[in-house]
């Protein structure tokens, strides 16, 4: 029942006036009669209590008050309100990111609370028109429209939050498009501890609150340059409203070091923790604290070295060149060019092209690139300043006293030249990639410049395409991790030791749980450290922008006006009152 004009109830104050008039009239209850002599001398009746009461409660007064009440009710415009929710479609979108694992003060996770809310929604909608979606960085459809009600509820109740990062509205939109588009759902309910900040119009957000969190949001380890132990970098967050005593522990499966802290509320601090006794490569940082979400109290880091570069060396040795290559990646010498990642030809002329990737330093290849007489060179010209080989390199500081002339294939890309003599060039065809560095290193200042290692790094990277090392960046759960460049994949185990099946030809996988994953290839075993996304540690519902949507758009409100009923009642009561009043006036003879 809804009253559209509550101000009308002020009319009830008129009842005071009616009562006052009746009190005044009651003081002179008179009755005119045709012949008083017929009444004179009659003995009066002793008045009973009931009769006195009846006399005090005048039916006319009651009728007038009833008329006033009915009129007031009519003016107040009462209406019987019913809300009918359209049954044409409901999409329940559950936030299944890692932060939904936070245990609230009620002892259940945010995700379970969201499931309870969703379950209540299911009661009001037909199963055939309901879809349930889990949104994270890897969205999933729990139930499509058309699923029987028990299956729908079962899918909802059996669902669990993931360890993944938050999903985006674009991902959700894409997922909804896959099941027929958002337009088929009149109501889309987003159950989460955050709003969709990049939002979708028409979403109704139900925020699931509760729980507090302390977290490690970053963790990395570097070996000490002097060779003994490692140093850990840790970022910790106290996302509560209180000072908290915490203990940060760094372990390498053999040794550990700890750091005890008092963290102020709502702070994020970074710490450098020396770990000189460490000799391991797999590190775990743990935050010992009591909070609602322990998934981010642990972070993992793997100090795996990059894979070795297999080098086949032809010609004379060059300590400077070898040192520069080894600074890029560990080097393993092999005897045959077929087994090599890189063939280095130094100070000689190879009889034929070894194929693959070849680095010619003051050398040539018979029939492909031959050096001529040596000429003095003075000024170096940068012909391709934007070439990747020159990334981070300043060639203007290079000095080359002399260099041999060379006949190069027409398609050779000359990067540096001096007085018409190519100094640095790249040649590529279908079978080989050749990088040509013309001068004898000893006739240049290259070995003593800071740019030389950078140049060699670029050269090796261009030739060998060594994959980026996994060391200084850990992967996140749910995020694709490339395993290429680590050799032929044999097996992959997740953090719980369960095998992960990779389709043939696929060298990328999405870890589902945090922890150390183990990859076994023909080049050995590699550890992949997987952590919860740092973004999941900073989720506080109170800080999340609350997007509220008016559900009226999905709910139809029917109002059945009742003022006519009240008005008719008022008229009937008024007629009754008038009739009674007229009959009384007839009795008293006042009316003609």
């Amino acid at each position, binding site marked *: 029942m809804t009253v559209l004009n509550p101000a009308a109830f002020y009319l009830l104050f008129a009842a005071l006036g009616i009562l006052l008039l009746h009190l005044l009239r009651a003081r002179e209850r008179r009755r005119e*009669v045709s012949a*008083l002599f017929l009444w004179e001398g009659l003995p009066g009746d002793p008045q009973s209590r009931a009769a006195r009461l009846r006399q005090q409660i005048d039916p006319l007064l009651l009728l007038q008050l009833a008329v006033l009440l009915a009129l007031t009710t009519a003016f107040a415009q009462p209406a019987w309100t019913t809300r009918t929710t359209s049954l044409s479609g409901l999409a329940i979108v559950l936030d299944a990111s890692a932060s939904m694992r936070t245990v609230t003060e009620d002892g259940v996770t945010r995700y379970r609370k969201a499931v309870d809310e969703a379950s209540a929604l299911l009661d009001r909608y037909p199963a055939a028109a309901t879809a349930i979606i889990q949104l994270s960085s890897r969205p999933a459809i729990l139930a499509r429209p058309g699923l029987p009600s028990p299956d729908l509820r079962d899918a909802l109740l059996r669902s669990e939050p993931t360890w993944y990062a938050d999903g985006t509205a674009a991902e959700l939109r894409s997922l909804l498009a896959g099941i027929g588009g958002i337009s088929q759902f009149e109501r889309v309910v987003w159950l989460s501890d955050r709003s969709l900040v990049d939002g979708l119009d028409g979403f109704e957000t139900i925020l699931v609150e509760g729980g507090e969190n302390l977290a490690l949001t970053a963790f990395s380890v570097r070996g000490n340059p002097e060779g003994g132990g490692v140093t850990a970098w840790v970022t910790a967050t106290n996302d509560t409203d209180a000072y908290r005593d915490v203990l940060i522990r760094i372990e390498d499966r053999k040794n550990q070091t700890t750091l005890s802290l008092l963290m102020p509320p709502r702070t994020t601090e970074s710490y450098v923790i020396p770990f000189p006794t460490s000799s391991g490569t797999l590190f775990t940082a743990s935050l010992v604290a009591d909070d609602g979400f322990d998934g981010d109290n642990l972070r993992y880091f793997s100090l795996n070295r990059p894979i070795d570069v297999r080098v086949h060396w032809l010609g004379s040795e060059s300590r400077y060149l070898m040192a520069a290559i080894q600074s890029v990646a560990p080097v393993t010498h092999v005897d045959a060019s077929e087994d090599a990642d890189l063939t280095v030809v130094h100070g000689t002329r190879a009889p034929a092209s070894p194929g693959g990737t070849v680095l010619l330093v003051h050398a040539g290849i018979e029939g492909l690139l031959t050096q001529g007489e040596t000429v003095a060179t003075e000024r170096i010209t940068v012909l391709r300043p934007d070439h990747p080989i020159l990334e981070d390199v300043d060639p203007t500081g290079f000095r080359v006293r002399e260099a041999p002339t060379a006949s190069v294939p027409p398609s050779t890309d000359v990067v540096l030249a001096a007085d018409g003599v190519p100094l640095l060039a790249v040649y590529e065809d279908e079978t080989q990639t050749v990088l040509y560095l013309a001068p004898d290193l000893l006739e240049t200042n290259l070995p003593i410049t800071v740019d030389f290692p950078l140049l060699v790094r670029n050269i090796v990277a261009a030739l060998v395409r060594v994959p980026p090392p996994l060391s200084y960046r850990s992967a996140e759960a749910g995020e694709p991790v490339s395993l290429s460049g680590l050799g032929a994949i044999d097996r992959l185990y997740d953090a719980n030791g369960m095998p992960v099946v990779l389709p043939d030809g696929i060298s990328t996988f999405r870890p589902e749980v945090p922890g150390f994953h183990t990859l076994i290839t023909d080049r050995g075993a590699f550890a992949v450290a997987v952590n919860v996304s740092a973004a999941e540690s900073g989720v506080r519902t109170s800080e999340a922008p609350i997007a509220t949507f008016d559900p009226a758009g999905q709910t139809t409100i029917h109002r059945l006006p009742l003022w006519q009923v009240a008005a008719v009642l008022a008229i009937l009561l008024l007629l009754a009152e008038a009739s009674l009043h007229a009959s009384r006036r*007839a009795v008293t003879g006042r009316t003609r």
Partner: protein
Amino acid sequence: MTTFIDEAFLQRLANLRFIVRGRRKGHLAGLHASPRAGVSLEFADYRAYAPGDDFRYIDWNAYGRLDRLLVKTYVHEADLPIYLLVDLSASMRIGVPSKAHYAAHLAAAMAYLGLRGLDRVGLFPFSDRLMPGLSARHGMGQMGRILRLLRDVEPTGRTSVNQAILDFLSQTHESGLTIILSDFLTGGGGFADGLSRLLHRRDEVILLQILDPEDVRPHAAGATQLVDIESSRQVTLTIGQRTLEDYKHRVRQNRERLRALSLERGVPCFQTTTDVPIERFLHEDLRRGGVLR
């Protein structure tokens, strides 16, 4: 007083006529029997033929059977003055519709019946005395005057039926049918004297007592200040069931006295209340009572 006569109502009275019990002498031919035998459609008697009688009135059928000349005589129909004495004292204001309204309505209906019967009708409103009225006249023009008078006179003053009759007798000298419409709720002396004088003048008298239902069956309860509408005298009374029964008993006695007086004087008396439809009163009570036919 508002207009209360409509055409349809009058049409429904078209088949009613006054019945006068005695032979009345009248100046003009009317529809009421006269002591003088005359020409009309209503057969009166036979008498022996005498020379000079109109041959048209010899009953030749009787001559065939009896071998005697008999002459048919007919009732001579003469007009009759009808006097309507209407009580318009203050006590007639009581009720919805008021007794005055009811009485006026009834008087108008009876005036119509009289005028339609070619009688002369006069109207004399009264309270404690006779008010200016209308002397008896023929024709429907008189109907309009009667209605206007009934409309214009406001009920006021005390009731004195006796004084009104005396005033009436002093103003009219021809006897006729005198109909008195009143509630006859007179606390003081009655009107037996006036009634006797009317009868002595050989008037035919009809008494119509009109009461309000609340006069007969009041619904008052509790401590009530009773005010006489005519005299403004007051009596405070705690009215209960017993008091009401006593009052009704007194009203019955009052009505019985009126009936006894009318029986004693051979005057028809009819009692009604304002909740009885006038048509029903005319068609049932007055027709059954021999006033109308």
